[in-house]
């Protein structure tokens, strides 16, 4: 019976490991896929590894992840050990009280820790800003930076904060087990406390320190939530990068980077295992190993005669660390930078490289999911952008709240190329804040192979016939706007009854299981892969999807739709105003607009680019095939189509609160 039990146990353990590792192996296999799908095998290739090493964003985030994990582990281990020794020198009552506080970050959900730290940093920055302004006002010798933002530093502090408790938790039992008389004995025999620490305490608690450091590192490298809330917009760990990628088209580069990570950890583990086995064998044979070079060195260094050398070395290392940090930050900040935030899949990335080569300005290109998330980012103090590309109604809202800076049009000569139709629009009547970037319509996309007949009404979104195959658009303005259109109301209504009626329409469809999900840029993979049949999305993105799935169709339903303009604006007090002007001027040029149009399939507001695009397309297509004018009309719809469409205007604050409120409720 015992034997069978044992076999059963092994089988169970084996199945558990299969469950743990099968997904990882699939991930690894598909990193060698020739196609860009994670589900359809198209043959072997190393293409994605090549692409990975050329992907600056992923490589940078990998570097950030490793750096923050290693630094946080090192600092937290030292500080935690130090603190644990301190705690154990305190009286029992004090120690227990402090250990309860020490447990808080471990007991708390990550998201609570992340959110509370984010609020703390932002509150601190506000206080600091007030102080710095006052300080810079009363004296002119030292100039303090007035504007601090979330970034690598705050993320590192957060990591240290959640790592220290784990180190203490691991070191504390070792200290408790240690015979306290040992230290007294060592000191009675003439050791200084320092020597007693190195020779008596440290060897005793070393296993605790090692396992503490290991756990701290594991927690750091595995963390996503706390980094997400404390890193701000300009710093990304690998996890954050992947999270933002899953919202768009995720490419097998992610599989490649996972594979490399997995293999390197595996190699480390195997090496460690081999080492441990060897040590054990040696211990069994009980041979005494001669002290290694480092052990001899540390023994020599800990003798009192070397006190000054020790202190000098520590000082030199501290100086070197400070100098290195300053140099590193200096090296990265001396190059001019511009921080741009746009939407996913919204630029031909070669334009970024071209701009960097021409001007020597480094572009830090970030994306936001929707106008609403962009607003949250800006408000929560985590964003460090210069140029943003919001849509019409959000521009009005940002202007209302005084968050935009006026542009210096004398430095944007290419503004002259912008078509009259796209100047002085209602959101910026005097055109003081914006340069249009792209425009288009919001329409209904459906997969003709999954839907019988043609669709010409928004009603399809709420139709039981398509239950489970409809994707609801993931932002409140578009989702409720479309429902309002279907009900025959204006998208800009402020009538609470009408808005609630639209909400009920959507919520009811949700309850009946019509929606498969609530998506923004996830729509690409869902629609292209045939994972959903109907979606609401933007014309330009439809054309991108069409490239990958010919069955998709786009309509502007008979109830009408929304048309929008996305425009570049500069945030108030943007730290890189001059570089921002250069970027805007570059993007407004005809060349950039043509390249962008060809890549993102959104219509350009540039007159020349609009005229020249059909010819440009033909020149650049592989077999000189002319542009399909029907598609061009979807991209840049003629006046009669735009007449059926309504532009969003900014809603009053009460209506916005209502929208937010209803929107959150939709998910519940």
């Amino acid at each position: 019976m015992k034997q069978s039990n044992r076999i059963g146990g092994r089988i169970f353990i084996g199945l558990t490991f299969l469950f743990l590792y099968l997904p990882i192996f699939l991930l690894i296999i598909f990193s060698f896929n020739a196609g860009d799908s994670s589900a359809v095998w198209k043959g072997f290739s190393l293409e994605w590894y090549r692409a990975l090493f050329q992907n600056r964003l992923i490589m940078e985030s990998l570097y950030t992840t490793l750096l923050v994990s290693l630094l946080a582990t090192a600092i937290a281990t030292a500080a935690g050990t130090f603190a644990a020794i301190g705690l154990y020198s305190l009286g029992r009552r004090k120690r227990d009280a402090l250990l309860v506080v020490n447990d808080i970050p471990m007991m708390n959900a990550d998201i609570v820790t992340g959110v509370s730290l984010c609020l703390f940093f932002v509150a601190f920055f506000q206080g600091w800003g007030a102080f710095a302004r006052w300080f810079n006002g009363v004296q002119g010798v030292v100039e303090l930076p007035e504007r601090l933002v979330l970034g690598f530093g705050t993320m590192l502090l957060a990591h240290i904060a959640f790592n220290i408790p784990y180190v203490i938790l691991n070191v504390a039992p070792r200290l408790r087990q240690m015979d306290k008389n040992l230290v007294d004995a060592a000191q009675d025999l003439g050791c200084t406390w320092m020597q007693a620490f190195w020779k008596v305490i440290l060897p005793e608690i070393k296993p605790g320190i090692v396992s503490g450091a290991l756990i701290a590192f594991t927690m750091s490298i595995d963390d996503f939530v706390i980094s997400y809330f404390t890193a701000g917009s300009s710093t990304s760990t690998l996890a954050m990068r992947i999270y933002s990628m899953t919202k768009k088209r995720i490419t097998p580069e992610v599989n490649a980077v996972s594979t490399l990570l997995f293999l390197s950890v595996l190699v480390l583990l195997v090496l460690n295992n081999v080492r441990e086995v060897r040590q054990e064998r040696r211990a069994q044979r009980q041979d005494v190993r001669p002290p290694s070079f480092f052990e001899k060195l540390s023994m020599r260094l800990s003798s009192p005669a070397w006190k000054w050398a020790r202190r000098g070395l520590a000082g030199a290392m501290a100086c070197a660390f400070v100098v290195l940090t300053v140099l590193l930050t200096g090296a990265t900040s001396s190059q001019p930078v511009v921080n741009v935030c746009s939407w996913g899949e919204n630029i031909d990335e070669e334009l970024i490289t071209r701009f960097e080569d021409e001007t020597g300005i480094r572009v830090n290109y970030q994306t936001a999911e929707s106008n609403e998330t962009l607003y949250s980012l800006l408000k929560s103090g985590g964003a460090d952008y210069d140029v943003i590309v919001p849509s019409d109604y959000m521009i009005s809202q940002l202007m209302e709240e005084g968050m935009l800076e006026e542009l210096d049009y004398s430095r944007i000569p290419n503004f002259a190329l912008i078509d009259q139709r796209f100047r002085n629009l209602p959101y910026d009547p005097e055109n003081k804040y914006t340069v249009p970037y792209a425009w288009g319509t919001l329409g209904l996309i459906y997969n003709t192979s999954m839907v019988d007949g043609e669709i010409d009404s928004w009603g399809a979104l709420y139709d039981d016939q398509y239950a489970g195959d409809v994707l609801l658009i993931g932002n409140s303005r578009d989702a409720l706007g479309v429902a309002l259109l279907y009900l025959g109301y204006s998208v800009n209504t402020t009538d609470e009854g009408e808005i609630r009626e639209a909400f009920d329409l959507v919520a009811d469809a949700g309850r009946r299981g019509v929606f498969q999900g609530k998506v923004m840029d996830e729509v690409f993979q869902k629609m292209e892969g045939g994972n959903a049949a109907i979606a609401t999305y933007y014309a330009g993105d439809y054309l991108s999807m069409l490239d990958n799935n010919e069955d998709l169709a786009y309509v502007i339903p008979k109830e009408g739709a929304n048309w929008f303009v996305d425009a570049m604006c500069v945030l108030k007090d943007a730290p890189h105003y001059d570089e921002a002007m250069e970027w805007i001027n570059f993007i407004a040029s005809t060349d950039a607009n043509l390249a962008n149009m060809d890549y993102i399939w959104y219509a350009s507001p540039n007159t020349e680019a609009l005229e020249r695009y059909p010819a440009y397309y033909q020149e650049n297509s592989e077999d000189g095939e002319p542009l399909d004018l029907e598609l061009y009309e979807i991209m840049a719809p003629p006046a009669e189509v735009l007449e059926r469409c309504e532009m969003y205007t900014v809603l009053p604050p009460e209506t916005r609160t209502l929208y937010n409120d209803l929107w959150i409720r939709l998910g519940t």
Partner: protein
Amino acid sequence: MRNKRGWFAVPYVIWMALFVVVPIVIMAVYAVTTADPATGELQLTGSNFTGMGAYLSVFLRSFWLAVVATLVCLLIGYPVSYWMAKEGPRFQRVAMALIMLPMWMNFLLRTYSWMSILENNGLLNQLFRAIGLLDLLGVDHIQMIGTPGAVVLGMVYNYLPFMILPIYSVIVKLDNSLIEAARDLGADGARVFTKVIFPLSLPGILSGVTMVFVPSVSTFAISRLLGGGTQMMLGDLIEQQFLGGAYNPHLGAAISMVMMVIVVLCMVVMNHFGEGEEQAVML
């Protein structure tokens, strides 16, 4: 070293005050105030809490899914730990390493690996199609992504090691003579387990349950990636208020506070069961 090195703790006390206590106080302040839309001034209000009833379904779903995930983890994790502890040291070491290994890859990568498996056109559905299961059922695909089951699966997959590690570390240290004594006194296998082994491994179970339940109840990435935005959980609700599509940090802070209090209450109740037992240390 007694009492002489007490000042070693001072920097850490200051650090904790700054990075643990103050942030929670700030969060509490946010929770009981609201910003005037016109002036941005803070006003004291209880409306963040009173209006929370509308999200009852989110609270219920979060706690329900987290409880299910924790139970599944326990049902898988306990036998694995138990049988692992019975193996030789070599086996144990390798098994421990294998359990830890995925954690060094970051949990988002692990969750992502399930996305491509569970999609409607994903690997699992392709497999079902290839073996004719879909034709048999007469459906085009089996809906897996976007269901509560997918979210629970993601939680179990990600947090199972957190259940195994503490239970294993307690069981492996169990005093074998206790088990032998029980046997000598006539207990059969089942009784030894229920009367000796299980009660003694309770501290490990408690800390495992904590370590699985807390991240599960508050997750937002797993429900977002595998739940397709339809399985909103508390974490999503909070994230939406801070960095998502409905900016209202005051409400977000209030929800965080409530969640924190409920979780702490759960922990207190649970630790009451394991009275006097010390939290098992990981590894």
